[in-house]
């Protein structure tokens, strides 16, 4: 039933690539977002400035432009860097080749890190000040404060924004087929060109995205319930 004219496994492999790419980009942008939000809220003026420039620039430029910019420039920069290292020390001769998957993850993570920064900044600000003061009064170190107090409470406020960003990342992964990564859209296009039934196969690709959206909606609902534990709500 899932043979799809012989292209079922091909499309399945593409779907797996899409999911892997989205999850890894989510991880990268999540970490970048935490760092960026901390930088934006820090007292250090330089850190604040860099984070502000990062979020303003990235959010003002279309993701496809950034993707092409970073994807094509990254390899050149890395080559320049390794050349410079090789010149510095003639004995070592090494080079780094970026495959499309890695550069896709780096690019998407870098772009959506800016959106996560804004989400986390709002969520950090929403945690009551007294909580932080109490934690410090208990003698917790900054990292422990973050892990035990700030992060669990912040997540509740961040979740709706995170869910939105995740959906955007999931859909943005469709763009990587433009830079030559064989994700589900790419697989559907190939199948369509080979069988001349482009419409059918692209509908399949769209359906894959819809199913992924439904699944992630379910997961988000579960997470929202989990982080709402202990919060008293008005009974209507």
């Amino acid at each position, binding site marked *: 039933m899932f043979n799809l004219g012989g292209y079922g496994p091909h499309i399945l492999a593409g779907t797996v690539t899409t999911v892997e790419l989205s999850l890894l980009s989510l991880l990268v942008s999540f970490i970048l977002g935490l760092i960026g939000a901390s930088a934006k809220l820090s007292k250090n003026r330089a850190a604040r400035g860099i984070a502000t420039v990062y979020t303003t620039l990235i959010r*003002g430029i279309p993701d496809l*432009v950034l993707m092409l910019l970073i994807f094509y420039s990254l390899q050149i920069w890395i080559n320049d860097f390794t050349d410079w290292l090789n010149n510095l020390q003639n004995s070592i001769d090494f080079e780094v080749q970026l495959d499309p998957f890695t550069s896709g993850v780096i690019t998407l993570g870098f772009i959506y890190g800016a959106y996560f920064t804004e989400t986390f900044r709002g969520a950090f600000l929403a945690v009551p000040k007294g909580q932080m003061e109490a934690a410090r009064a208990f003698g917790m170190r900054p990292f422990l404060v973050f892990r035990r107090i700030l992060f669990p409470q912040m997540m509740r406020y961040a979740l709706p924004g995170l869910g939105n960003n995740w959906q955007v990342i999931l859909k943005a992964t469709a763009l990587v087929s433009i830079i030559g990564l064989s994700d589900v859209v790419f697989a559907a296009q190939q199948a369509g060109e080979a069988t001349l039934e482009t419409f059918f196969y692209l509908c399949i690709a769209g359906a894959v995205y819809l199913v992924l959206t439904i699944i992630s909606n379910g997961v988000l609902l579960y997470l929202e319930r989990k982080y709402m534990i202990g919060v008293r709500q008005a009974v209507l």
Partner: protein
Amino acid sequence: MIYILQNYWRALLYSDGYHMTGIAMTLWLLVVSCAIGFCIALPLAIARNSKNPLIWGPVWLYGFIFRGTPLYVQLLLIYTGVYGLHFVRETPFLADFFRSAINCTLLSFALNTGAYTTEIFYGAIRDTSFGEVDAGRAYGMSRFTLYRRIIIPSALRRALPMYSNEVILMLHATTLAFTATVPDILKVTNDAYVATYAPFDAFGLAAVIYLCISFTLIFMFRRAERHFLAHLAS
């Protein structure tokens, strides 16, 4: 960089000598798709607020499908998929329409932004304060007048911040047009990249142009918000 600017400035700004290209093309795509999207969204948002599931159901489904799939897939589907269908190629009118890249691009953009805008307006209409509606009813307004005079003006004002976001996102989405061979800014800079093999110069130039357009739009929407939302200012 200077080479690119000298050779491509005209194509980047408005024309390559044959067609409208570059910034003019991007703005044209943005304005037309947002205008059509707006016209689709307003009636659909009212329908989405209806109590009858037969009315709000299809609108919800439209929103779910177009917001749940990537715009790139929708564009590919309309640009390459639809023309492959047999009955479309047989019907002269449809064949003419779907053969043109810009028609397909505009159609998919308008349907996509229409889905998002519907959701924005739907939320704004739903959150209209009950007092305003009660006051309108107390004046004896008919349903149509109530919508025309009270609900829609108030909802559109409150939707403005969200709507401005959507327009900026739509500007970013117009870059996809280059995959359908529509000569927008990204297509011109991509040509420059292919000719010079200087990705940072070429795409960096595109990035700067898009940044300027984004900031101009944000500035204009700020002005509009200050004007239309003056009564909400604290």
